[in-house]
């Protein structure tokens, strides 16, 4: 099936700005779904609010565009009710880790079989460039006109310590890796978190003198390195890419099946 068959052409053109990284993530996601041979009927995409959340409207899956930060909570109800469905949750950095931070850590803790893709552009794009919990100290945004004094979360560390059983990071520049990690995240039985550094030239790039989309993408190449690589050893300040955690642990819906068995005295 060509990748085209996984989108709702009726709803294009999309609403993302020129140069936005989110389209790259959408592309990689569709290729991953195709490569895995998943049936569209078996996929539910649940998103919150923000630029990233609009992905759910463009894909020809069962799709739910919900409330800011709450996508994982809606998704938990869907997955718990019909565990046979593949549940994918695209999220923004503010969506996942500011307003949705509590749902993020608890979904991780439960190890419910869903895939959270955190598209981290370090800014609130849809509302026009305010700092997010991933912007980082010293960055500029419309609500930090004198420079940001907030420290950033490390998404990977947070997911790992909260109990997610698959945790990875890559960028919109590394498209092959991106597709591969999405495949692995979806295939993993348990709660998967994939952080994707995704450029926002319109708001983050412009306010932080990070250049246009091409320069920002090149930045991801220069500023990141694979876990355990020589490049990382030589340049410890680089952001690590790769799979940080991949472990087997009984999944939540499977556990609940045994609760039902115990309740029914089987």
């Amino acid at each position, binding site marked *: 099936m060509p990748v085209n068959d996984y989108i709702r052409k009726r709803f294009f053109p999309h609403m993302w700005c020129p140069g936005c990284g989110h389209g790259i993530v959408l592309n990689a996601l569709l290729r991953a779904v195709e490569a895995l041979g998943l049936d569209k009927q078996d996929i539910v995409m649940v998103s919150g609010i923000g630029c990233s959340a609009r992905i759910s409207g463009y894909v*020809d899956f069962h799709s739910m565009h919900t409330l800011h930060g709450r996508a994982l909570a809606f998704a938990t*109800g*869907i997955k718990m009710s019909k565990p046979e469905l593949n549940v994918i949750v695209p999220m923004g950095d503010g969506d996942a880790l500011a307003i949705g931070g509590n749902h993020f850590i608890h979904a991780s803790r439960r190890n419910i079989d869903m895939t959270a893709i955190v598209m981290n552009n370090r800014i609130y794009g849809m509302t026009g460039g305010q700092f997010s919990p991933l912007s980082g100290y010293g960055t500029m945004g419309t609500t930090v006109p004198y420079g940001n004094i907030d420290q950033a979360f490390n998404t990977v560390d947070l997911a790992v310590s909260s109990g997610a059983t698959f945790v990875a990071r890559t960028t919109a520049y590394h498209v092959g890796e991106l597709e591969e990690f999405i495949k692995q995240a979806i295939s993993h039985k348990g709660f998967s978190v994939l952080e994707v550094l995704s450029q926002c030239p319109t708001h983050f790039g412009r306010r932080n003198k990070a250049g246009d989309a091409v320069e920002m993408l090149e930045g991801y190449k220069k500023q990141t390195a694979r876990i355990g690589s020589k490049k990382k050893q030589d340049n410890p300040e680089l952001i690590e890419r790769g799979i940080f955690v991949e472990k087997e642990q009984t999944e939540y819906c499977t556990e609940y099946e045994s609760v039902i068995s115990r309740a029914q005295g089987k």
Partner: protein
Amino acid sequence: MENNDVRFIQGNEVCAEAALYAGLGLFAGYPITPSTEIAEHLALRLPQEGGKFLQMEDEISSLCAVIGASLTGKKTLTATSGPGFSLMQEALGYAIMAEIPCVIVNVMRGGPSTGLPTHAGQGDVMQARWGTHGDHAMVALTASNHADIFRMTVEAFNIAETYRTPVILLLDEVVGHLREKIRIPEPGEISLVARLRTAVAHGVDYHPYLPREDGRLPMSDFGDVHRYNVTGLYHDMWGFPTEKPEIVYGLIRHLVDKIENYSEKMTRFRKYHTKDAETLFVSYGAAARSALHLVENRRKRGERIGLLELNTLWPFPADIVREAAAKVDFVLVVEMNIGQVMREVKLAVDNPDKVFLANRIDGQLITPTDIRNILRVIHGKGV
């Protein structure tokens, strides 16, 4: 027909059993007094029936999970009290906008804020109506005794499915924690409304948000053959976001009219000795128990007092109230707040000056004596 399944249990357990009777498939909630027994009972009972129980991280996520699960075709429920109900308002609006059936029980306690967790209040009547932002219609039911808690819980599910809407069941601390006798109805004794599912075939364009002539919208379960979009934004018949004024107008009218135009069908009430009444009590929930007690006592002495007990609070049954109040000298609204239903009664009747309030707002159940004292003042007899 009548079985012998008679139990002596709490109102909250009655509500939980009634939800199972209605076909509950998933409950998600967060512990909060005085509603917790509903969650506890369902944690025990749901898996016995093959259903799912989720304790979420807060009330926000509880209602979100309930809405998500409903889209997969299950009947779903959450239960909470004041502070948790406040947290649910955002998702409540989502369920209205996306037209997703679900039931929200609010076992009311004293408010505002943390208020009086273990005491009685009925202060959330207006929050149930207007708590979520934006224009909308709302369905809210209530009950004063175990038989009615059972009946209204089942009704809540039936209305939710019929009109594709969230339904609020407003109980209170007194009826929730009260233990009294109840006979659990036989299967089939109360009719159940199953979800209306689309007959559109696989491969044919299905419009999840195109109402039929009767206003109803057949659904398709997530995971079934039709793939569509659900959003809290204004949306077209495919569920895709739009800002076109004519579609926005059509949708808000539909959301309001599908409830308001059928309000008679959702109106439930009980009348006690109202035919020849000179004084009419209007009450609901625990307060109605005291009102009924007083009515029955005074009737023995020949006093022409009647009670209109409301089981539907929203849409407010203004016609029923107006009609019942038409020939009486006084209307006394009995409730445990500063007059939330009294305002509606004043709006409903022909002469608002004859409407008075008997209330308690100190966390204590209003007693027949409290009501009688107000009655004496109205009649110029002094306390």
